[in-house]
């Protein structure tokens, strides 16, 4: 009977008896098509991005192959390029950032959503949104003029004296390095974690809390044992967002990381990140191999983001198999 059923699979209610033409007249089909194109453009941009990075990094890919990932030398004069120190720096700074930002951010979100009076919560949320909108170069300056000296005079002695026997805390400090970059990144991503986690926590149904309280749990017990697990997936989503921002951050990192392509166990040592080296060297990169190696670094960053996000998602699937309510 209805020969003109639309070809796009619809998730909404099916409208069997109306013809395609009448749907078109009503605007349903147009709306669906237009929004579909918008959604598809996201995929298209991603695909084009990868394609562009891939085709423009042909030289180093054929020349270095997989060695690109394990070589530690970055020498534009001898035309030898390896990504390992940059991968290490990117992962290390992002890990430090998340280690610091996740407990802080989630803790703050719990307070704002569950424990603070609504007026205070809303007022604070305003400031948090403000923090999220600050350009990264401002955070870089803040890091350079405040955290770098603080690192040298306070944080480094405090950590190095008692813990200096561990390779992680060994060696001299110049103020700049992995830890400094990690701290600056943590400050930058905390607003994201708080903002998203708070929204998720606020959207946990009231029944859940009331049921817990009715069963005799304290306020904290209902928050920690019922509300937070319920919102787990959403909170994880906020951490993804934070991770993505930390991995790709350029300006703030390059100002405080020391820009030295070396792999060191110590978190006080200077290092380098992928985004920072691209920003630093792209404009003056002469020679095709040099330029294309930088582009391949971009591809590596893309890959790294992809893998880390995948791993994080896997982690969620494994840990939340019992099922939880809200996803972001």
């Amino acid at each position: 009977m209805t020969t003109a059923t639309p070809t796009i699979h619809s998730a909404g209610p099916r409208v069997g008896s109306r013809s395609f033409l009448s749907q078109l007249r009503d605007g349903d089909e147009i709306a669906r098509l237009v929004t579909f194109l918008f959604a598809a453009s996201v995929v298209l941009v991603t695909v084009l991005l990868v394609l562009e990075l891939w085709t423009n990094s042909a030289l180093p890919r054929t020349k270095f192959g997989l060695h690109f990932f394990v070589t530690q030398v970055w020498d534009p004069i001898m035309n030898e390029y390896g990504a390992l120190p940059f991968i290490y720096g990117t992962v290390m700074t992002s890990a430090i950032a998340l280690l610091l930002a996740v407990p802080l951010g989630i803790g703050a979100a719990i307070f704002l959503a569950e424990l603070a009076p609504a007026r205070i919560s809303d007022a604070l949320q305003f400031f948090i949104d403000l923090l999220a909108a600050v350009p990264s170069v401002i955070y870089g300056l803040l890091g350079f003029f405040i955290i770098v000296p603080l690192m040298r005079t306070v944080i480094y002695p405090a950590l190095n004296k008692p813990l200096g026997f561990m390779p992680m805390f060994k060696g001299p400090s110049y103020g700049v390095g992995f830890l400094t970059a990690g701290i600056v990144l943590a400050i930058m991503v905390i607003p994201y974690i708080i903002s998203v986690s708070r929204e998720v926590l606020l959207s946990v149904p009231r029944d859940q809390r009331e049921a817990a309280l009715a069963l005799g749990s304290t306020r904290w017990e209902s928050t920690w044992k019922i509300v937070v697990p319920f919102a787990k997936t959403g909170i994880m989503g906020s951490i993804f967002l934070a991770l993505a921002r930390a991995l790709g951050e350029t300006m703030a990192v390059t100002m405080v990381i020391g820009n030295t392509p070396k792999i060191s166990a110590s978190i006080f040592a200077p290092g380098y990140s992928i985004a920072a080296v691209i920003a630093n060297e792209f404009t003056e990169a002469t020679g095709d191999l040099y330029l294309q190696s930088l582009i391949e670094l971009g591809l590596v960053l893309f890959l790294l983001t992809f893998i880390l996000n995948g791993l994080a998602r896997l982690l969620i699937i494994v840990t939340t198999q019992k099922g939880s309510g809200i996803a972001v």
Partner: protein
Amino acid sequence: MKRIPMLLAAAIALSALIWAETPLLINGAGATFPYPIYSKWFDVYKKNNTNLEFNYQSVGSGAGIRQVTDGTVDFGATDGPMNDEQLKAFQEKRGTGILHFPTVLGAVVPTYNVPGVSGALNFTPDALAGIYLGKITKWNDPAITSVNKGVNLPANDIVVVHRSDGSGTTYCWTDYLSKVSDEWKTKVGKGTSVNWPAGLGGKGNEGVTGQVKETPNSLGYVELIYAAQNNIPYGTVKNSSGAFVKADLNSVSEAAAGAAKEMPDDFRVSITNAPGKAAYPISTFTWLLIPEKIPDARKREAIKGFLSWMLADGQGYNEALTYAKLPKEVIEKEKKAINKIQ
């Protein structure tokens, strides 16, 4: 019906009028170091030649060379001369050669932050190369103390700071180190970015300056202009005649004059470690890159006109912006080279 051809004719005449009125746009891209003087020049030159419009983007020497080779701009600008490989690439891509025109002079100076030291420190070429190679690691190393008698240098580790972004400043600095140290030449080499054996990277002159100011016992290098404009103290460097020279407009011009006698016809010359008693050894030209053949006659004449003006009146604007003037010999030689543009 008769009106239409008339209207058409009127439209054509009008568009021709507009065409003639539209200023000729000349695009350039390249080095950031000479950007202040270039924008001043283009601005002044435009006032006397209202039919011209210069658009210069300071995207960096490397990008400038790339863009002029690809033909996306009419001229390029660079702090380090194009190498033979790049010249060949240009020839292959564009079917013509490219000419280097020195425009102004710059210099790179060592800056430091040593607690208790206030005056200017003296540096020998060996000391600078040793420090940047990571071989001289203490401020009280004999290589430094022997030429700084009476200065109480501490036994602290030297924190070496270099540029992290690719730059002409780094090119000049490493070009100098390559000339004075064979070890540097073979191990590191010269370029806008190199594989540094030691030290931390700071982004831009301001990044290096900030890092040096913030870190006790540090040593870095910055452009002379930047140091002068921001009152950053810097040291003297021993030149090839054995004299310790402080960088200023005169000592930099002196270095160019020393090199001018042996100026090659293509102007691709490094003036680091130049001869001359008063010459500052870490000096450099910065160049405009002009294709030898410019098919568009209007553009060709405009560029040639600008070059002649730049070599004469243009040089008068240099010192106010703390760029050193070109020596006379170089100017005379460049004037002849302008005729090569066809």
